[in-house]
């Protein structure tokens, strides 16, 4: 009994912090989103979001961009995860550092880098101009392409690490067996490694999708005001129009989407680790 009380004493500050500073504000949002000004229950803010064509378009853009980002992260991340799993420990360490460095750098700093690269006179437009693909004043800023590029840089590590965790447990002898039985190299990839890595691929995809749906600084800076996504709409509503009920309702939509995808994610990663 004495020991339990001791444990409780150590845990108390943390639990208190979480309850007061995290659970209460977040549940406050959940309430605010379904209340009117007199604190009566209403679904009007939610129906406003789901019926106003402007917000429906924002929701659709968010889903579409997240899907594209997830697909590219998978296509680019799977080979890298494989190389990291099968390469030497030195290579693995350096690649790990290379992909986590942008992740640990401030979002404003790396987005600034993309603004320089993609903006007017930047490296990419210059290259496209030299290749005759675009005129001199071409810029990739304020486009969905820019948003996708900027987001992939940060979200890519999540995909790679999810897949890496699974692939490094795949027995190398299975691949060798497939080759001995007559598979070509690419066939052994497609028929052996990819199916075995599937839990990691799905977990990584769910994670990347939910994260990309809730980012707002990169889309705001690279896409501009003309291309709002759900998270940037929440920011605009909360800080410019100060309509907190509506901002809360939009957060509920975002949260519902994220939770819906997080449940299968939690199941998969538990299975992958256990």
């Amino acid at each position: 009994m004495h020991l339990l009380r001791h444990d409780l004493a150590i845990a108390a500050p943390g639990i208190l912090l979480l309850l007061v500073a995290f659970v209460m504000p977040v549940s406050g949002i959940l309430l605010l989103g379904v209340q009117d000004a007199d604190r009566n229950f209403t679904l009007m803010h939610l129906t406003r979001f789901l019926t106003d064509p402007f917000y429906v378009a924002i929701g659709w853009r968010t889903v579409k961009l997240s899907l594209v980002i997830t697909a590219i992260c998978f296509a680019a991340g799977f080979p890298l995860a494989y190389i990291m799993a099968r390469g030497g420990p030195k290579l693995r360490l350096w690649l790990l550092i290379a992909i986590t460095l942008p992740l640990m750098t401030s979002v404003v700093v790396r987005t600034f880098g993309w603004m320089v690269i993609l903006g007017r006179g930047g490296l990419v437009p210059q290259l496209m101009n030299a290749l005759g693909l675009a005129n001199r004043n071409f810029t990739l800023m304020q486009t969905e392409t820019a948003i996708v590029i900027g987001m992939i840089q940060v979200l890519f590590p999540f995909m790679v690490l999810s897949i890496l965790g699974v692939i490094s447990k795949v027995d190398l002898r299975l691949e060798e067996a497939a080759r001995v039985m007559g598979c070509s190299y690419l066939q052994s990839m497609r028929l052996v490694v990819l199916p075995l890595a599937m839990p990691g691929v799905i977990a990584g995809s769910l994670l990347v999708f939910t994260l990309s749906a809730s980012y707002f600084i990169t889309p705001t800076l690279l896409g501009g005001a003309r291309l709002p996504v759900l998270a940037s709409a929440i920011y605009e509503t909360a800080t410019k129009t100060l309509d907190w009920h509506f901002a809360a309702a939009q957060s509920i939509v975002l949260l519902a989407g994220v939770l819906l995808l997080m449940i299968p994610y939690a199941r998969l990663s538990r299975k992958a680790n256990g």
Partner: protein
Amino acid sequence: MVKGIPSFVKIFAIVYVTAIVLFVLGPLVVVAGVSFTAGDYVTFPPQGLSLRWYETIVSSPIYLEAALTSLKLAVLVTVTATLIGSAMAIVIHRARLPGAGIIAAFFLAPLVLPTIVFALGLLIAWSAYMGGTSLVTLWIGHTVIAVPYVIRTTLAVLSTSDKFLEEAGRTLGAGPWKAIFHVILPQAMQGIAAGAFFAFNISFDEAILSLFLRSPEIMTLPIQIYTQLEFSPDPSIAAASTMMILLTVIMIFVIDRLFGIQRVAG
């Protein structure tokens, strides 16, 4: 005979890894490049080399004040997040408290929940009940999102430590507090230290909470950079950004030395 890896795959792998590394590190290299320009505009490659934009930021009261605010905040967050996170890790590791598993899942929630929802919640709660946001709001907010990292690194070390050492210490007459300070903490030190560096880095770089809760009193470095990006980027932003990148690089190497970056990722 089965050939190992076909050569076209090897060539593809080399080209592909190079492309990926260029892609993920390119923007950071470009920022560093821009910061050394002698010209007046944000261009890459830079026009001439000089340190004039570094001189600009170290003599600019706006940047200095923002850096100081960020530093102060990051130190405060490091202290609270490390204390709370390591304490929670010990409790979760012992798994004596009923519902320790639920507590563990609960504490990782800030990692999964979109930060923007949490940020909005804090903004509304503090505006409604506390008469507006302040440095304290940001301190608390950053602590909540940094604690899971400290828990994770500390737990990783504790789970490989010898469980019986604590019992031995207790049998030899150490009270529960003494056991923590003389047995558990020294064992977990590596993980706690790595968590502390994580907490510092998270707070120093964080922009979402800082943007939502911003007020003139709490202009952090990332928010200063964000504001300038929205209006008139000049190479001084690149200089400030490069300092931040440098700090992150140092942090990663320190964490790797202390703890192993592979364990963080795994």
